[in-house]
């Protein structure tokens, strides 16, 4: 009985930003469903679509010839198959590092500006808007990451090792919070990423619009904040560890439907 009362009280807490739900479980699903047809991420999608078609940068070019893996200019369904190995760069790239590559090669915008920049600002902020546009074109698609290339296999294995890698001032790894079912940090539910359902729940719901701070966060941004809370040093934007963890999550979540872009507390 006490547990039930607690659950209701927490729901009321959530209601600071959302209507009241007297649920047994502390979850956000009902609120998310209500926003499904009016996700504020749409504003970023629109901005991203415009950025895709606008001639910019030192080369005054659009991104319409950018190859996200399905051929030059093909956006529909591309995000569902990322990260992937790209022959032209010889690298495994996620959506953000691939967009960065296109911005550099097509538009002449230096990648370094994005890598050394800050989230939500400048060219890195523009990458986020482009991400919103691209993932929306994979809404409802099944996650379909091809792990057959040796570099993808290696990234998956590195990602799995990184997931369990304890380090930092508090001895945490990703697994400290994300390797058991039905656990919470405070009132926040944690997906069990060691299982396909949990990996899909994590991978398939970011990028997302965050109601608590009215910001659109990409997966790079989310991973960066996970590491901040783990008390590690700061992960470098689009560095190997971020790509490896992305391949691990996407690969484990393969076959599940992506909910992009998500809505989060």
């Amino acid at each position, binding site marked *: 009985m*006490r547990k039930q009362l607690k659950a209701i009280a927490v729901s009321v807490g959530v209601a600071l930003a959302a209507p009241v739900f007297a649920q047994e479980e502390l979850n956000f699903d009902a609120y998310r469903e209500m926003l499904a047809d009016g996700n504020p991420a749409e504003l970023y999608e629109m901005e991203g679509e415009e950025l895709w078609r606008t001639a910019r940068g030192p080369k005054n070019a659009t991104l319409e010839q950018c190859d996200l893996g399905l051929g030059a200019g093909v956006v529909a369904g591309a995000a569902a198959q990322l990260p992937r190995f790209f022959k032209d760069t010889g690298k495994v790239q996620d959506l953000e590092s691939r967009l960065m590559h296109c911005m550099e090669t097509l538009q002449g915008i230096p990648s370094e500006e994005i890598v050394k920049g800050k989230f939500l600002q400048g060219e890195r902020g523009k990458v986020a808007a482009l991400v919103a546009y691209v993932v929306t074109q994979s809404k409802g698609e099944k996650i379909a990451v091809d792990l057959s290339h040796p570099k993808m296999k290696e990234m998956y294995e590195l990602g799995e090792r*990184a997931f369990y890698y*304890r*380090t930092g001032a508090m001895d945490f790894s990703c697994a*400290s919070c994300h390797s058991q079912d039905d656990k919470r940090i405070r*009132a926040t539910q944690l997906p069990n990423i060691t299982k396909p359902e949990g990996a899909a729940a994590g991978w398939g719901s970011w990028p997302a619009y965050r109601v608590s701070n009215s910001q659109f966060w990409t997966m790079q941004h989310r991973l960066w904040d996970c590491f901040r809370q783990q*008390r590690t040093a700061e992960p470098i934007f689009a560095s190997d*560890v971020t790509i490896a963890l992305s391949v691990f999550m996407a690969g484990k979540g393969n076959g599940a439907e992506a909910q992009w872009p998500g809505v989060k507390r």
Partner: protein
Amino acid sequence: MKKLFIAAPLALCASVAIADDLQAKVEDMMLKSFKANGIASLDRQKQDAVQKACSSPTQPDADTMKRLEAAELATIQWPSDGNYTGGDWKEGQKIAASGRGLTWTDKTPDNNGGGCYNCHAMDPKEVSEGTIGPSLEGYAKLRGNSEEVVKYTWGKLWNSKAYNACSDMPRNGYGGILTEAQIRHVMAYLFDPASPVNQ
């Protein structure tokens, strides 16, 4: 998926060259993919013995666990004046509730939170409580305050790995997360009969 099952036992066998190669690559990646920022230096990316041994889905064997735990136990600083529980539970409550400190956006290293509520239930009236660790509601009411329980609790707060080498709990004293005075306040929050934890 099958590959994974093959990879896991291999990783336990240090003599297998492929596993060693992958391990070296992971260690390299966990260093080179990061940069120092503020108080979060690159030293944080290097593992100590406990972190290294507890970085796979399976725990080390019992002998290794015992050896690691003995080494961690030796790091615990017991209160110099023998005062384990004489802190202020109200201060302890603030420390338990705060999850702040030690990130690259934090400035000072000596007023961190303990982050207890992130993982534990403590005050039965607190609704926003994590579930990764066991519930500590009614801590002293249930366990009493014998010397054994009091000493164990101090030791667990100071260095949790002394009792379970692969515990999820941070090493608050050993790791410089909390000061001795702060740990005494948290002890009071757990043991003081007037503390909400024991109501």
